């Protein structure tokens, strides 16, 4: 049996002579989107090994302040020798080199101990609210002048009164078992708060796992017999930054509850991104529901979102080069990061317009997300949206701050760019 296979050199380029197809492709950037700001966490934010300490000024927020709270480990050893003499107590911190504000002025760091152990109310994967941390007492302070991008290891002496208190405690529990001693240790060292004194103009970042408090002693009349007992960070997951804004009358003050959003219309066509304070930018696509309802009869072949950061809120040389998008519902509860059709996480890429140097924006392909929304038709919740996060997960590892231009900004407005293919539906 011979069956001929059809074959042709190529497709016939007939332009539109023969085919009068009603299908068409269209580009639009006129589909309204809306940027808004909400506050995901209002008290303390897990810092994941970064201690932010200090204070600096930010547009729309006034002064932003931060201090670090950490749960500490037990003393590395107990037992006090008969001829052992106390020498000093010191703290070691390692500056990461990250900073915000003016680093040319001295900053005074104050180290405090918490009277009771930090208690956590864990209600989410990444965010922790601490409602009951107690007043603390200073155990020492020191000043230094940071230098941009330097990573000095800082070692300062703390108050001897604290050291002597530690010695007294060790002697007191000398006859107790280590378990009991450890338990009682928490009563005098529930945690450490590293904060600032005065009105500094800079925020500095330290590696949390580098923080170490050391009790130094020696055996009397025995040369070079020095003894060190250390207190370290218990876990990087037990270190938090408390960040707050002061002296502000911004539209974002109304964000006292998690389910509130400040629309870009309420905030001068801007939204805010400040992970340290828990401020996040939400992008809504409320007009898509209308499109779906109106029998769109189209398929989106490409949907790109273009988000413009406000020029004055970032340093062009240090602006993050990417961000991720995470789903959020009307109650500002977070979902998963969004994926493309290949299963990869959608990330936005920073683009610098080579023609207009002032035009800097993030560009993300959200085709799959938009088509999924449109496919859900009537089930689209207009208040669902996407949240911008710097990390691939909701883990605010840095003190990042940025304002974004909204869709209704006069220049460099954030837009949704859609290429859609409309198919003819009628029989003839």
């Amino acid at each position, binding site marked *: 049996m011979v069956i001929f296979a059809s074959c042709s050199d190529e497709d016939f380029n007939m332009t539109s002579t023969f085919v009068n197809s009603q299908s068409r*492709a269209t580009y639009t950037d006129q589909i309204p989107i809306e940027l808004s700001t909400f506050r995901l966490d209002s008290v303390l934010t897990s810092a994941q090994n970064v201690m932010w300490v200090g204070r600096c000024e930010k547009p729309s927020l006034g002064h932003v302040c931060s201090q670090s709270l950490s749960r500490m480990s037990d003393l590395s050893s107990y037992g006090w020798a008969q001829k052992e003499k106390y020498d000093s107590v010191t703290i070691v911190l390692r500056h990461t080199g990250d900073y915000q504000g003016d680093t040319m002025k001295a900053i005074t760091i104050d180290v405090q101990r918490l009277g009771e152990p930090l208690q956590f109310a864990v209600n989410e994967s990444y965010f922790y609210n601490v409602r009951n941390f107690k007043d603390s007492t200073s155990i020492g302070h020191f000043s230094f002048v940071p230098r941009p991008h330097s990573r000095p290891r800082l070692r300062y002496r703390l108050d001897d009164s604290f050291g002597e208190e530690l010695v007294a405690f060790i002697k007191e529990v000398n006859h107790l078992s280590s378990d009991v001693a450890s338990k009682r240790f928490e009563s005098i060292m529930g945690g450490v708060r590293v904060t600032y004194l005065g009105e500094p103009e800079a925020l500095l970042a330290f590696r949390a796992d580098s923080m170490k408090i050391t009790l130094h002693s020696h055996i009397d009349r025995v040369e070079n017999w020095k003894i060190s007992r250390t207190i370290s960070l218990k876990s990087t997951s037990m270190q938090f930054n408390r960040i707050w804004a002061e002296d502000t009358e911004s539209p974002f003050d109304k964000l006292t509850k998690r389910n509130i959003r400040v629309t870009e219309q309420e905030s001068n066509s801007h939204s805010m991104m400040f992970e340290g304070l828990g401020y996040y930018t939400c992008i809504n696509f409320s007009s898509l529901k209308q499109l779906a309802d109106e029998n769109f009869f189209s398929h989106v072949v490409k949907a790109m979102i273009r988000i413009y950061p406000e020029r004055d809120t970032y340093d062009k040389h240090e602006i993050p080069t990417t961000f991720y998008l995470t789903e959020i519902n009307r109650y500002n509860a977070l979902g998963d990061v969004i994926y493309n059709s290949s299963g990869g996480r959608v990330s936005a890429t920073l683009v610098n317009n080579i023609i207009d140097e002032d035009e800097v924006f993030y560009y993300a392909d959200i085709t799959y997300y938009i088509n999924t929304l449109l496919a859900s038709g009537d089930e689209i919740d207009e208040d669902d949206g996407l949240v911008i996060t710097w990390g691939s997960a909701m883990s605010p590892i840095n003190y990042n701050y940025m304002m974004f231009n909204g869709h209704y900004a006069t220049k460099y407005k954030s837009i949704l760019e859609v290429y859609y293919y409309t198919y003819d539906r009628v029989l003839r």
Partner: protein
Amino acid sequence: MKFITIPMIEYSAKLKAIAASVVLMLSLTISAQNSTSSPYSLYGMGILAPKENAAAAGMGHTGVAMAPSDWINVANPAALSGLDSLTFYFNFQMKAFYAHEATPSDQQSVYSGNIDGITMGFRGSRWWAACIGYAPYSTVGYNMSEKKNIAGTTSWYDIYYTGSGGLQQAFFNNAFTFFNHITLGVGAGAIWGAINKKETADFSAVEITTFGPTVLLGGEKVYNLKKYTMNNWYVEYGIQFDFNIGKNNFRFGGTFADRTSMHSSYDHIVSNDISSELFFDDVTPLKEEFAVPRMYSGGFAYTRDKVTVTADYHFNEWSDVLNVKFGESVNFRDNHSIGGGLEWRCGKRDDPFYKRMTFRLGGYYESSYIKMRGVTLGTYAGTVGITIPMGRSQNSIVIGYEYRRRGTTFNGLVEEKFNNFKIALNIHETWFMKSKFD
């Protein structure tokens, strides 16, 4: 005692072999329907395929007034009167083509092939002969592309139009002969099939210049498929009569088939590489959406000795049919065609096969049922054919060749030059012969 008989077990095996071949061919036909390549097949039901034997194809597609004894003429239900009463006829036919298509600015070559028909016929009595068969009714096959602008940009995307499928027909023709010279025919059959029209919008190579440098948009492909499925029964009538003047035989014939509306359905499926069903809609169109037109034909054949001259005229009332035109700027109009042929039979039955060949020659003109851009599409064809006997049997191989030109490059249309080949295997088996004892 002189004994002449046919071992029945042998014929039973042959019959089974033939039946198996038919089933196999039909199944293959269904899976390999793309037997044309023409942008003009975009419209209506596609390019109409004449229901004919390869022998008729070599004679300018004539045959309305022929009643051959050595092949099954399906051009007229009444054309079976010439079949031999002791012979079972089987015809298996294939078609192949090589085409060159051109516009003022573009051209392409294409070739393909497919089964063109299967027919079995016999004479049941002095006054009745019949045949059953399968043949394509129309074929759709085209590949076209263009670039379209993305509205609101200066970017372009590729769009590909492909068509496939077509309609098939199965028929049962009966010829009833009265007074030796008048034959009435009636054919009943079914037409069915599906036409797929697919539009692929490819955005993967789209370049955009939204923010300075040209970058690849990297969009997806969207497939927009429209599938038209249709079927119905139809009836065709035919007549032939002949008379002799001396050694000259004159035969006239005619056929008629009324307009037949098709039961049809329509599926519209939009998909992409991720989802097989972005959109699905199925609509059963009105019965008037698709129809086979009313058809008339008349023919004449003159035979003297070894020479036969034929002429046919066909008229199809397409203007009365509201077939779906897919929104194209095309009008249907009545379709006329005329053809003429000449056949020369050599030798005698006892001659070697190379002296018993039959040669054919013909010409053909058709004004298409499609009128585009004010141009009525014309088709001109020249045909030749040959019948090659197989050994001393009556079996033969029939070859018909046609050079066909269709369309024009005027007004942005396409001119097509086809080299069409039809090859048929005619098997004659002596059946119905009774044993005779002396």
